[in-house]
């Protein structure tokens, strides 16, 4: 087993690895911004001289694996924070954790690392990937929908999302459509929806696909059919969809208007600094910085005692903008989930707004497969 | 047995009948010339004989064997070579390499992956020989794209020679070759006489009448006359359709 890298000269080194180029760069930038916001505010994270190295994974797993090794082996960072995408997480997980370095995922939360492959050096400040979809399934169930149309892009996350939805939804599935990744035009799918007239649509359409779908949904005159979604209507896509998205529903572990002091401070200072409303990507990275801060403080800057450090991390002793936050056995969060709706704020910016709490202190479905105590 | 035996060849492009029931033979060692107006179908005929185009109907036999269905490379392997009316060479190769490739085609398998070919004396010597015969010996090392038009014509000939043909189809080998060069060219072809048979297409009547054993006249896809050069030259139809006064001058000469 490799020896954990020593914290020389009392410098805390953190590597951020996010997608900062290509079409999905907006997500990575939000996350980076969120982390840097917290870091700037704290100055010295955990009371230590802090050095932050930001690298771009270009959304390429092979490159990301090298980047991660570079952070761990060459830069000898103490923490790696990131990434956005699950396939990047799969690529960097082993190179980082096998050296004893702590990996904190601020977005991707795949099921294998929540279940059988859970790892003491791996923490997640976001969610388990299925959970937001389960929120919507539960909401559909609660509304008594009997006939829901499901649609997701044809790739691993898309397939997982529909499975997640069906996990908490017991009604009838009116239709299940897998679209192409990167699809531009949804008129054919929308026609099917119009023909089936389901009780609701559930969809997972991240990024540009979601923007296209949302715009075309209204144009096709389907607004009477409830639009339930995850990662589709959020602060990264709302600037593009604007009014077209108003009233559409999503599931999330947080919304910018959650009523608590930590959130108030986070959202105002973020908008002040970056001129747009933060999304969950920013919030979760912000929490990662807070998490590191709290843990390093707890161990008094002694990063050589890894067990102590891990224990300190596990305590999650910080004020998250989302309110309650703690880690489950698998180091994935146990947190509340909300139904959110797209709204136009008083200042003219578009954001999501928490409408209803769906799950309270919700534990993911894989935690019991994790053999950590 | 005729070297090359063509029977009732027919070919149309849409409504245009370009080859209309053409039958002809080329005997061993013979030079059989085909003349005829522009657009009569001479090149199209060569294209069918060489396997570049598929005839609509008819038979082509080489040394008695039916080759109508064979591909171009297979026909070359059996000894039927052609030169192109419009120069067709490998522009980036040297003159020598152009010819050496043709030698290679007839000597052993080319699915040899590791032995260097550049120093293969057997290929280079044979190629050099063909080049010298075509009068290009001193240009062997030049990149083929840098040759002048007339030199390109000679390279065409050298490549065809290097395939060691039984029957050589020559489509206007003299086009663009002038003056003494042309005379030398004709002399060269005459030297090959007997070594292999030739089907010669040419608009240069001096060359045709100097070389050919037999001449066929192709007009609108049909052969309207076949005979010795003298017979053809004095044929009134041929004069009207093709030779014009040039024929008269020659007949007079």
């Amino acid at each position: 087993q490799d020896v954990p890298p020593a914290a020389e000269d009392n410098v805390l080194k953190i590597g951020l690895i996010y997608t900062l180029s290509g079409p999905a760069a907006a997500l990575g930038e939000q996350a980076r911004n969120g982390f840097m916001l917290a870091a700037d505010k704290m100055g010295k994270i955990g009371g230590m001289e802090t050095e932050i190295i930001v690298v771009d994974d270009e959304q390429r797993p092979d490159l990301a694996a090298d980047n991660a090794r570079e952070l761990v082996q060459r830069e000898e960072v103490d923490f790696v924070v990131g990434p956005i995408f699950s396939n990047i997480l799969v690529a960097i997980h082993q190179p980082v954790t096998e050296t004893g370095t702590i990996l904190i995922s601020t977005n991707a939360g795949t099921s294998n690392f929540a279940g059988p492959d859970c790892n003491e050096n791996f923490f997640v400040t976001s969610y388990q990937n299925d959970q937001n979809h389960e929120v919507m399934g539960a909401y559909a169930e609660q509304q008594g929908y009997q006939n829901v149309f499901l649609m997701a892009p044809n790739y691993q996350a898309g397939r997982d999302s529909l499975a997640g939805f069906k996990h908490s939804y017991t009604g009838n599935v009116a239709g299940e459509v897998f679209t192409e990744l990167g699809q531009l035009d949804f008129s054919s799918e929308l026609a099917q929806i119009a023909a089936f007239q389901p009780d609701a649509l559930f969809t997972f359409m991240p990024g540009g696909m979601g923007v296209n779908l949302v715009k075309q949904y209204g144009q096709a005159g389907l607004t009477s059919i409830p639009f339930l979604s995850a990662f589709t209507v959020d602060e990264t896509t709302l600037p593009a969809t604007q009014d077209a998205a108003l009233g559409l529903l999503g599931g999330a572990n947080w919304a910018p208007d959650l009523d608590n002091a930590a959130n108030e401070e986070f959202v105002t200072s973020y908008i002040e600094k970056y001129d747009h409303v933060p999304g969950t990507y920013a919030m979760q990275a912000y929490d990662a910085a807070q998490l590191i801060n709290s843990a390093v403080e707890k161990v008094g800057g002694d990063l050589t005692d890894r067990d102590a450090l891990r224990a300190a991390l596990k305590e999650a002793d910080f004020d998250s903008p989302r309110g309650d936050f703690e880690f489950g056995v698998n180091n994935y969060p146990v947190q509340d989930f909300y139904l959110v709706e797209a709204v136009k704020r008083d200042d003219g910016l578009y954001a999501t707004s928490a409408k209803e709490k769906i799950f309270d202190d919700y534990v993911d479905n894989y935690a019991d497969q994790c053999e950590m105590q | 047995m005729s070297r090359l035996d063509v029977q009732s060849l027919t070919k149309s492009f849409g409504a245009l009948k370009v080859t209309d029931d053409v039958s002809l033979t080329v005997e061993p060692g013979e030079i059989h010339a085909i003349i005829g107006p522009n657009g009569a179908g001479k090149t199209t005929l060569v294209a069918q004989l060489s396997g570049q185009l598929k005839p609509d109907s008819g038979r082509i036999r080489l040394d008695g064997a039916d080759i109508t269905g064979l591909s171009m490379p297979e026909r070359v392997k059996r000894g039927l070579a052609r030169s192109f009316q419009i120069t067709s060479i490998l522009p980036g190769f040297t003159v020598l390499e152009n010819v050496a490739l043709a030698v290679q085609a007839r000597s052993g398998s080319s699915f040899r992956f590791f032995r260097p070919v550049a120093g293969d004396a057997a290929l280079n010597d044979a190629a050099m020989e063909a080049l010298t015969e075509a009068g290009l010996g001193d240009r062997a090392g030049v990149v083929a794209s840098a040759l002048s038009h007339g030199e390109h014509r000679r390279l065409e000939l050298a490549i065809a020679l290097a395939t060691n043909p039984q029957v050589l189809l020559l489509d206007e080998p003299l086009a663009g070759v002038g003056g003494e060069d042309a005379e030398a060219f004709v002399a060269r072809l005459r030297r090959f006489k007997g070594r292999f048979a030739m089907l010669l297409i040419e608009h240069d009547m001096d060359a045709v009448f100097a070389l050919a054993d037999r001449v066929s006249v192709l007009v609108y896809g049909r052969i309207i006359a076949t005979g010795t050069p003298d017979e053809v030259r004095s044929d009134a139809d041929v004069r009207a359709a093709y030779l014009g006064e040039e024929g008269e001058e020659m007949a007079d000469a």
Partner: protein
Amino acid sequence: MLEVTGLEAAYGESRILFGIDLHVDAGEVVTLMGRNGMGKTTTVKSIFGMLKPRAGTVRVDGEDLTGADPHRVALAGLGLVPEGRQIFPTLSVEENLRATARPGRWTLKRIYELFPRLAERKRNMGTQLSGGEQQMLAIGRALMTNPRLVVLDEATEGLAPLIRADIWSCLETLKDEGEAILVIDKNVDALTRFADRHVVIEKGRVVWSGTTQDILATPDVKDRFLHV
């Protein structure tokens, strides 16, 4: 109207022309002769700016067009029938004629009268012509630009004797109409019949020039330089 002085040209590092002097006056027919590879085509390319000359000048009606873009040379009144035809393969026969046409005496109708075969094939694509038909098309195409000086580089290559004769009589007609002609051709005898002057080049240099009378008077010119 065309005046070339001291023209030098090269392809990369291999020098081909070493000072060519030549002029064609309005209405005059001049031939450019020489054996294969002596630089005739290179001279033509240099005149048309398709190859930038290393030295020397090319003037048309006094205007210096040395190394100018080809279209400027053409617009100054020169028309080209290039070596090797260079028909546009993706255009039909008629489009080949019309694409670069400029108004003047030569019209589609007159070209079709000159070469009836082209009229028969006017819907064929350029590549679907026989070699000789392509040659007719190249000549027709040049005439359709209504030049005052036509440059023909091996324009009768591959033409049947009858057609060749037609071309010669056509050139004579052109000459009668006052057109200037610069012609390269291996049929020296046919040319001496109606050309005014002759220029012989060898290895990129002018080795002899003179009138038709001069040639007829000194038969050994042909022997010496052309070996015919």
